[in-house]
């Protein structure tokens, strides 16, 4: 048991990349709060930090553009949207009733941990074809811009169309209905 802890500390400390460690801690801690906090507002704020941490991961993994996108769209857009949702639908002063969900929480936690076990087992045991980790590219904005209109044009158009349809659909769903 002691050895396991030693190893874990080793893993966390021996990594020369301190930023990775910090980001990992941030992400996991805030994600746990986001998933388990009883207050939805709290969960949303926790999600904010998780998303920021994810952006950090993307920087580490070599795509600054995706990190910026993550912050602008996810944090700036989606999260704000969630906040709006919370504010619009939550009656203030109404606390969640704790007991009704407990059974599910337990069942879900057990299932989830089992699932996590399976996943980790697969991750460790699978023969990944791991290559050399390349250094981060100098800048990926220009190639991404080119690729969007070249190789990924169809996907780009479809995504655009999907966005438009969502816009229309959302507007349709929440239109004012005269009773």
């Amino acid at each position: 048991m002691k050895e396991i802890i030693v190893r874990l500390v080793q893993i966390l400390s021996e990594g020369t990349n301190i930023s990775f460690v910090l980001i990992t801690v941030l992400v996991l801690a805030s994600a746990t709060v986001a998933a388990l906090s009883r207050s939805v507002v709290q969960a949303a704020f926790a999600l904010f930090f998780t998303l920021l941490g994810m952006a950090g991961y993307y920087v580490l993994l070599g795509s600054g553009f995706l990190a910026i996108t993550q912050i602008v769209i996810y944090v700036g857009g989606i999260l704000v949207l969630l906040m709006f949702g919370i504010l619009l639908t939550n009656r203030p002063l109404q606390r969640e009733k704790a007991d009704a969900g407990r059974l599910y929480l337990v069942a879900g936690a057990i299932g989830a941990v089992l699932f996590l076990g399976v996943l980790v087992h697969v991750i460790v045991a699978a023969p990944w074809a791991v290559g050399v980790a390349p250094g981060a590219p100098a800048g990926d904005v220009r190639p991404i811009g080119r690729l969007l209109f070249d190789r990924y044009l169809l996907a780009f158009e479809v995504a655009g169309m999907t966005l438009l349809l969502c816009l229309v659909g959302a507007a349709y769903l929440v239109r004012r209905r005269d009773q």
Partner: protein
Amino acid sequence: MTETILRQLDVFLADPTGLHTYLVVSALLFVLGLIACMARRNAIGILIGIELILNAAILNFMVFWHFRGGQATDSTLAGPMMGIFLIVLAACEAAIALAVLLNLYFNFGTVEVDSIRRMKR
């Protein structure tokens, strides 16, 4: 048991910021999202869980792109591209979900999913 866990930890020790570590983080995020989906009664909480799952997926794409098998260069930028498109889809999903939630709120006065059981006979 301990032996097994130690052997597995050794894998991470070999490269602490390598593929395996990232994948485990991703798996953790995924499972946390799942738990949120299952345990939350507030629909927005479920939505937050879904966002966590989506982020886990994006992270997986990025990780596999980053640690691609031996290739030094990649002109297609598949990982960031998938990330971008997933973020777009997430935005769509959030917008629609919010619209649905607002509708639910107008019609039922709540977004507690357990209270919305009209389909139940």
